[in-house]
């Protein structure tokens, strides 16, 4: 088990607004092995981005990572570090890229200025060497004429190119972990494919482990080794890519599958949306957060949060249907998943 890079246990992050405590993440646990790619999937407000920002130590006021949360990164608990100590880890050991590349680069500084600043922050090297490193990174992420383009300002790049610059900057200090928060959501579809292709390519060429956060199962299908499904601030199901796609054991995961379009299905068939809306995290439900929208909800689902059941070594699911006393809904899951 020495292969674990990041282990998050019982992560609880809340935002204290004037309305009360908004419990964005309510006890999330997951882990990432070195060199692997972990996908965190969930709809808006499921707590996936907040989980990532908690790992980065970037939760801003009035938010707070609560007591008892443990974020173990290579044997150090990141929640116990000061902001100053965390800033030495950010961009150096753990990097993050964001959803909207159009606004994620500072418009008033050149790419060179921004990249060199990050490299020099974490490495004691000359400006010239830092620039060479930056050019090398831009080349790696497929920016043409990097020596020339590095002098440009963000507005002189397209959205896809800006995301490449973001990735180049994030990887410039050889981080052990790259967190990509919806890296393709703000891009149009062809560019999405290019960025995903780039990340897949980088995965094989560099040793960085990756966490990809997305609401789109399609995005993570090919690139992830393991997947975490989040909902209502809790983790619904974890497993390998195979488990989540071909043997989902949680009605929410099944719902996600049914709501995405597929190529090889009868074109007249309607997509099945998940009815209802996510729970209010200001007053989180006592039971399973998905109970209100779940077609198989039972009395206990409303009353008590389901424990995490282990299905196989890496596959877990938090659903009362997996309890031995639960009624057998049979192959409610596999029947609805279209095999490819």
């Amino acid at each position, binding site marked *: 088990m020495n292969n674990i890079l990041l282990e998050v246990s019982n992560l609880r992050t809340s935002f204290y607004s004037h309305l009360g405590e908004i419990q964005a993440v309510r006890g999330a646990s997951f882990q990432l092995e070195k060199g692997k790619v972990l996908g965190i999937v969930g709809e808006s407000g499921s707590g996936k981005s907040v989980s990532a920002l908690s790992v980065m130590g970037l939760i801003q006021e009035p938010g707070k990572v609560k007591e008892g949360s443990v974020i173990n990164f290579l044997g150090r608990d990141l929640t116990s570090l000061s902001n100053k100590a965390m800033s030495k880890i950010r961009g150096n050991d753990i990097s993050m890229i964001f959803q909207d590349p159009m606004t994620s680069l*500072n418009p008033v500084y050149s790419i060179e200025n921004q990249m060199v600043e990050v490299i020099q922050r974490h490495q004691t090297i000359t400006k010239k060497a830092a620039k060479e490193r930056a050019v090398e990174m831009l080349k790696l992420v497929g920016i043409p004429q990097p020596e020339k383009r590095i002098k440009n300002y963000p507005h002189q790049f397209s959205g896809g190119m800006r995301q490449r610059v973001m990735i180049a900057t994030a990887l410039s200090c050889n981080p052990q972990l790259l967190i990509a928060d919806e890296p393709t959501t703000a891009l149009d579809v062809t560019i999405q494919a290019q960025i995903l292709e780039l990340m897949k390519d980088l995965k094989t060429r560099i040793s960085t482990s990756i966490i990809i956060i997305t609401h789109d199962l399609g995005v993570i299908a090919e690139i992830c080794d393991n997947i975490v499904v989040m909902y209502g601030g809790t983790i619904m199901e974890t497993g390998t890519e195979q488990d989540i796609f071909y043997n989902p054991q949680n009605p929410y995961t099944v719902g996600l599958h049914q709501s995405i379009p597929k190529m090889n299905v009868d074109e007249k068939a309607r997509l099945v949306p998940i009815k209802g809306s996510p729970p209010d995290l200001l007053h989180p439900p006592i039971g399973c957060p998905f109970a209100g929208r779940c077609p198989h909800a039972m009395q206990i689902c409303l009353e008590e949060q389901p424990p995490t059941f282990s299905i196989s070594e890496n596959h877990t699911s938090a659903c009362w249907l997996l309890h031995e006393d639960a009624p057998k809904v049979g192959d409610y899951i596999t029947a609805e998943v279209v095999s490819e």
Partner: protein
Amino acid sequence: MGRYFFRRFLYSLLTIWLIASVTFFMMHAIPGGPFTREKAIPDEILRVIEAKYNLDAPLYEQYFDYLKGLVTFDLGPSFQKVGTSVNDLIVAGFPNTAKVGFFAILAIIVIGVPVGIVSALKQNKPLDYIVMFGATLGVTIPSFVIATVYIYIFAGKLGWVPPFGLRNAVSYIGPMIALSGYSLSFVARLTRSSMLEILRADYIQTARANGLSEYSVIAKHAVKNAVIPVITYLGPTIAAIMTGSFVVERIFAIPGIGRYFVESVTNRDYTTIMAVTVLYATIYVFMVLLVDIAYALVDPRIRFEKEKA
């Protein structure tokens, strides 16, 4: 870039000419003239005086004469102070106005901007509330109240400063406060709100995510973006302050040019009206040009668009 600013320079001259022309004709459209008195001057005498100053010539002739004078920097004789030219009035008064104005502007930038930044960083903390309370007072209290209270306390009761004039360094403090009070408070508020907006920007989160120090995140990445609206505001403000204030110069008895803006109009002192108008317009137009240059230095997006234009 050079060509762009050369063109802008020509436009500036055109603007000044337009302002001067409009003012010239509007001024002559007001009833009465420089020699209209409550106690009427006999017609013959009035005609002689008007002939002396060429006021009996057709208006277009006066207009072209005036423009001729303007390009040779001859602003003509003052109608109120016999024997002095308007050039003399400006040369005597403007340095005083400009000196006080310069210190006021310095205070606005050096105090207003940092105070706004600190206030934003301490948002909703006691310091922020105190600063914003002070800034609200500064924006709402008129300069003549500030000036009068200042003189009452520091010159009258305490005797620390002279009650009027610009005799020594401390005597600049009062006019500086009265002149900058409003704009300083406004700049502090503007900087604060701009800063609060920028601190929520995605690229600030990126800067933090890249592990930059909090100092760099604020001083380098946030401030440069946050001062852009402040620069916009400062252009016209500097023009207004550099040309003085009737009220402040009157209360502190500063021999500046601020009073001419009011006195010349009530007196129909044509040449002085034109002089202060053209002076104000010139400073204003060139401040706007300066603001555009400052923009281009701060924001590369603007530089780029102008090169293409």
